[in-house]
């Protein structure tokens, strides 16, 4: 048994898993506050990464400026998307809501391919050194940065929902829309802001992954990988999203290890999360931290 490889893969899994956790958190944020399942979450990453690429490479901006402009763009994008497409969907059956976001997903995927091309593009070098030595292992600087940024985002979410006024309004809306509205919270604003924040944070994750792997339409696959994570953690739990993301990330890399060392099947690592997903849905459909919905007649 190759312990060194296993350890390296598990560390990889932890880092990738926290990124999954961040994206899953954005997904849960939208689901919790607006009751919409966002199948276009992966496209947020994709659009964010491409827009940042356009700012950096086509317009030759310095990194911090391009990054900032991307965040502003994504915020506006999220609000406009919510206002134009998702607002008419309030009160529609769940199949319509799901299909609208799926429609958005294929629209934006095709649009980015059309505008930016189908080939992988790489960002200009941001860091001086490519990798650093940590505990006797080579780790890419971008990975460390992604881990730090993920932790930072998570802490930001914690602060936001615990202390900021908007975060409290969002929690109130998620708890009960009618009560929140009667207390003077603008539910419209809350809906728009939750899409804006989700788009913005997803874009950060997209840029981080784009720095490591390059920007291509493969980024939107993360949007699909999010589903095992959120189902495992529970659909309406932010903590669950993080835990689920980390577990799915580790699981993927463990599957890769088992596959590479013993089974030699090929792409087990990309399919393993979905087997887990089916099993969880059969035995514990509301996940680890999700609330079980009880229906009355």
């Amino acid at each position: 048994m190759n312990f060194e490889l296993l350890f390296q893969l598990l560390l990889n899994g932890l880092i990738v898993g926290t990124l999954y956790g961040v994206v899953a958190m954005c997904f849960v944020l939208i689901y919790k506050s607006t009751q919409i399942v966002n199948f276009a979450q992966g496209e947020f990453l994709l659009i964010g990464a491409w827009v940042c690429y356009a700012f950096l490479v086509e317009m030759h901006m310095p990194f911090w400026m391009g990054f900032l402009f991307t965040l502003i763009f994504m915020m506006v994008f999220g609000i406009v998307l919510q206002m134009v497409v998702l607002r008419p969907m309030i009160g529609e059956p769940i199949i319509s809501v799901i299909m609208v976001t799926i429609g958005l997903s294929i629209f934006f995927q095709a649009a980015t391919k059309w505008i930016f091309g189908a080939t992988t593009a790489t960002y200009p070098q941001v860091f001086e050194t490519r990798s650093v030595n940590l505990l006797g292992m080579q780790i890419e600087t971008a990975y460390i940065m992604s881990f730090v940024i993920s932790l930072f985002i998570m802490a930001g979410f914690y602060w936001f929902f615990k202390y900021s006024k908007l975060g409290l309004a969002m929690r109130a809306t998620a708890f009960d829309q009618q009560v929140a509205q009667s207390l003077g919270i603008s539910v419209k604003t809350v809906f728009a802001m939750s899409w804006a924040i989700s788009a913005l944070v997803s874009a950060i994750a997209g840029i981080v992954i784009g720095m490591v792997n390059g920007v291509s339409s493969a980024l939107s696959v993360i949007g699909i990988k999010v589903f095992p994570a959120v189902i495992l953690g529970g659909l309406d739990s932010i903590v669950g999203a993080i835990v689920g993301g980390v577990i799915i990330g580790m699981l993927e890399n463990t599957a890769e290890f088992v596959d590479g060392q013993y089974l030699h099947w090929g792409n087990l690592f990309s399919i393993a999360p979905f087997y887990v997903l089916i099993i969880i849905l059969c035995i514990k459909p509301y996940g680890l931290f999700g609330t079980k919905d009880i229906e009355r007649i």
Partner: protein
Amino acid sequence: MAGFSIRPCGDFRTTYRQDTRIFDTTYVRNAAILGIFAVAMIPFVLDGYYVNLFIQISYFAIAALGLNILVGFTGQISLGHAAFFGFGAFASAWINNTTGIPVLLSIPLAGLMTAAVGLLFGLPAARIKGLYLAIATLAAQFILEDFFARAEWFTGGSYGAAANPINVFGFEVYDDFSFFYVCLFFLVVMYLLGTNLMRTRDGRAFVAVRDHYLSAEIMGINLTKYRLMSFAISSFYAGIGGAIYGHYLGFVSAEGFTILLSIQFLGMIIIGGLGSVKGTLMGTVFMVLLPEVMESGVSALSVFEWASSTAVTDGLAYIKEMAIGLAIILFLIFEPDGLAHRWQQIRAYWKLYPFSY
């Protein structure tokens, strides 16, 4: 009321038998039969391009009807229909290649095999519904796609599987001209079966499960049984459609059955109208014609400078994909009940014209 009129001028039904009739009047029934004969004339009148389009429409329409039974009538969401469609294609080729059963028989057998697989993946549906089910079927899509690429004994792995042409009583169906009639036969039979299913107790049970599953259960409908049954029937239709597709192309490869095709199937039934057999056919026609119309639209616009640029001509595949996404979004926002509803409105308008109130 059985007179020679398009619609009876009021509601004269006194029995349940009358209420569940497929055709309101004899005129409508005769018109439908005449319509089928008119369609059967297509290969004699129009050229091969349209015959090919019709064949595409027919196998997609059969699979889409299956999805509509599941989504539109039973209220279960499935994002993995393309995988079942593909499974049917592989299953029919496999049955025919290994056992030598004639293709015409192997197509329904493939349907049954797909129904069994559908039952397997429908099992979570016994416990979960709505969104959770959508995600479970999404997982089914990826698992089956992976299976297609891996199971070489069944699908030929990455090389794909060869499917023999259809053989009707010693008469080989090679060209589009004769395949057209095979498709028409299957289309009519499957649509009649689908329409009739909705008139039976099982069909009404599906609708009851969709409308309010708790009330349905209290009324004595076995939820688990009907949800699983709906999955099986839906997969059966997908399998038949897929098998026809496989034998039409003569070759089945694992790449064709991606999530995009699943979304296209969902798009067909949403654009056509959820819970409408007629709408399914309309939606399929729309979905199959949309890329063709886009293509001819772009080539018609190429007299202009901007439309003949490489950005437009090279991006045509992406423009088609964007059109599919956009069509789904626009229909959901502006016409959530689909083309079937619009058709109803147009008919009502002409019926009351010019004295609509």
